Each structure stands twice: as structure tokens, then as C-alpha cells.
């Protein structure tokens, strides 16, 4: 059972007197803000002909994404997909306000998280195989595909960027909605890792597990960045 906000229906607000509890662990927050910074950086470097930096940004995002996927099965309670990804019935109950919102991602927010991670995965994957028309700049895996395929992939890489922009805009709009309509500061929680809620604390993963996950994610990203040649 998820831990509930104090006495809350979806439409009511948590009592200000509720105690402060940990909701997001440090790895989840670091990954979140790093992705939030690197997506605009990737766009800027690509638009300013700095493909060396663009690739480095992409490899970093690949590592962060891989870490987040590992953390989604082995991380702290609020980071785990099995805990926050819900079916249509749970989403309906949440939207109707019959069920109190869980601590962490709401069932509707989970859809947004999955969509954003999927779009990011697609974008990174495409970038790895892309090539520019001059044959000067290429992703590290473009040697696995033909020039024509790599050019097609480069076109898709430009299109998926706008999918990411749309999802990020939706994400920010939802945060503003919670801030202005529901009176909840989600940004502060993602910075400090804490929110006001009743009930027992959440299970947090030990720090060494984050180190192992980062090592695995980093090693895979490094291998891919170097062309995945065996």
C-alpha cells in the first residue's frame, strides 16, 4: 500500500502541520536536474555547430538514462517503476479524487515520466546512429548502418527533439498547475528531496547501490560512446 498524504483526497491539500519526510533520494534528484540541464545544452551545442560537445552531452545523457532505468528497479521506493507506474483504473481513481495521491509520482505523473524517458531513449538511440550530410560528424554507432539509413536517422533525430520539447512543456505546465491550483511546491521537493506528509518514511536505497548502478551505467555508456567495437 502506498503511503498517503495526511487525510488527503486528490483535491485537498496536505495540512501545513504535516511533518517533513524524505520523498526523493539524492541519485534521483541529481539525475533529474542533470537531464533538465543537458537537454537544452544538447540543443544549443547542436545549433551552434559544436558537435563534439553535443556528442559528449549525449553520452552523459545515455549514462544518466541507463542509471535511471537501473534505479527504476533497484533504487529507492519512489524511484521504482513497479511502485509508481499504474494501470488505467488506478489513474481513473486518482483523477476522480476517490483515492488519495501517493507520495512520489502520481499515477498520471507516471505516464509523463514513462513518456519522457522513452522519448529521451529514442533520441539518444537515434543520435548514436546519425550522420551529417558532409560525413564530418557522426554518432559512434553509425558504422553499423549505411549512409542512407544514417541520414534517415539524422532526420528523425531532429523530429524527436520536438517531441521532447512538447513533453517537457507538459511537464512544466503540470508543475505550475500543482503550484498555482493545488498549492504544492514540487520544484522545492525535487531540490531538497523532502515534502510535507504524514505516515511512515519511505524505504531509501543504500548509497553503495547507487555507486554500483552508476558504475554499470557509466561502463555501458563509455563502451557505446567508443563505437561498441568488440
Amino acid at each position, binding site marked *: 500500500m502506498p503511503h498517503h498524504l495526511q487525510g488527503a483526497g486528490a483535491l485537498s491539500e496536505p495540512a501545513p502541520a504535516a511533518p517533513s519526510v524524505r520523498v526523493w533520494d539524492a541519485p534521483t534528484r541529481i539525475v533529474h536536474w542533470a537531464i533538465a540541464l543537458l537537454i537544452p545544452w544538447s540543443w544549443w551545442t547542436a545549433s551552434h555547430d559544436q558537435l563534439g560537445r553535443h556528442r559528449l552531452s549525449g553520452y552523459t545523457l545515455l549514462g544518466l538514462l541507463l542509471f535511471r532505468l537501473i534505479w527504476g528497479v533497484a533504487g529507492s521506493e519512489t524511484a521504482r517503476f513497479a511502485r509508481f507506474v499504474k494501470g488505467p483504473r488506478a489513474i481513473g481513481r486518482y483523477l476522480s479524487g476517490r483515492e488519495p495521491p501517493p507520495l512520489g509520482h502520481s499515477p498520471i505523473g507516471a505516464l509523463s515520466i514513462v513518456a519522457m524517458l522513452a522519448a529521451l531513449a529514442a533520441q539518444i538511440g537515434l543520435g548514436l546512429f546519425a550522420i551529417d550530410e558532409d560525413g*564530418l560528424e*557522426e554518432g559512434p554507432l553509425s558504422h553499423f548502418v549505411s549512409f542512407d539509413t544514417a541520414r534517415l536517422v539524422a532526420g528523425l533525430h531532429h523530429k524527436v527533439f520536438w517531441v521532447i520539447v512538447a513533453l517537457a512543456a507538459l511537464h512544466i505546465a503540470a508543475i505550475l498547475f500543482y503550484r498555482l491550483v493545488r498549492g504544492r511546491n514540487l520544484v522545492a521537493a525535487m531540490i531538497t528531496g523532502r515534502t510535507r506528509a504524514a505516515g511512515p518514511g519511505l524505504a531509501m536505497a543504500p548509497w553503495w547501490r547507487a555507486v554500483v548502478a552508476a558504475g554499470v551505467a557509466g561502463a555501458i555508456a563509455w563502451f557505446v560512446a567508443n563505437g561498441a567495437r568488440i
Partner: protein
Amino acid sequence: MRIVRVVALAACALALLAAAKVDPNVAIPARQMGMKQIGRTFKGINDQLHGGAPDAAAVAAGAHQLADLARKVPSLFPAGSGPETGVKTAAKADIWAQPADFRAKAKALATATAALDKMARKSADPALLQPFVARVGGACKACHTTYKVPEH
């Protein structure tokens, strides 16, 4: 005098015929095919050089083919195959408005690919060929930046 007039008329007729011969629906796809072929060939060389253990024969063959293709670039841009035809093309009208500069850029590509071809016959050492390859890519880019409509 009569012979001069006949020759002049014949020349005009030939010029008209030649101009009429350029069908943008043929010339533009032919240009796109030619450019793609350059891209494929160049990528083939790069894939060899980035792989660690390049096949010297493949690199030399690719570089030779690339030099051949590069020499034909000006012929891919006949007058009457520009955007004014209404057929979809990324080639800018400036190509035909500034023919001297365009030709100089095409010549730079021919020179760069010829240099790569010459060097690739001697060695397939990636470190040695890298500056030659970079010069080819730079020549592609220099022309595309000025004369090609960006895709995005």
C-alpha cells in the same frame, strides 16, 4: 557573310536545344543520387579509418572512387536545374548567380579528394589520412553552408 549568319543561327539553335534538354525532373534526382553516392563513398572510407584496422585496398578504392565522383560535381548543376523550376531541390539559386565562387568551391572538393586519393594509394594509416579526410569534409561543408538550403 552568309556563312557567318548560318553558323550563328546554328549555334543559337544548338544552345536553345541544349537548354531545353535540361529536364529538372531528371537533373535534380540525378544530382541527389550523385551527392548521396559521394556521401556513401566517403562514409565507407571513414568507417574503415575509424575501425582500428582499416582494409588498405578498400580505403584506396574508396578514395579513388570519391575523387572520380567529386570531379563530376559541377556537371550535376546544369543551368535550369535550380529552385526556379518549381521542382523540390535544396540547391540555392545563388549557385547559378555566383558561378565563379561555386566553381571554386567545387574545385576545392576535387583538389581535396585528389589529395586523399594520392595519399590513400600509399598508406591506410588513419592518423596519416585523417587531415586529408577532414579537408574533404570541410570542402563538402563549405559549399553546403553557402549553397544548400538547410534541412531543418
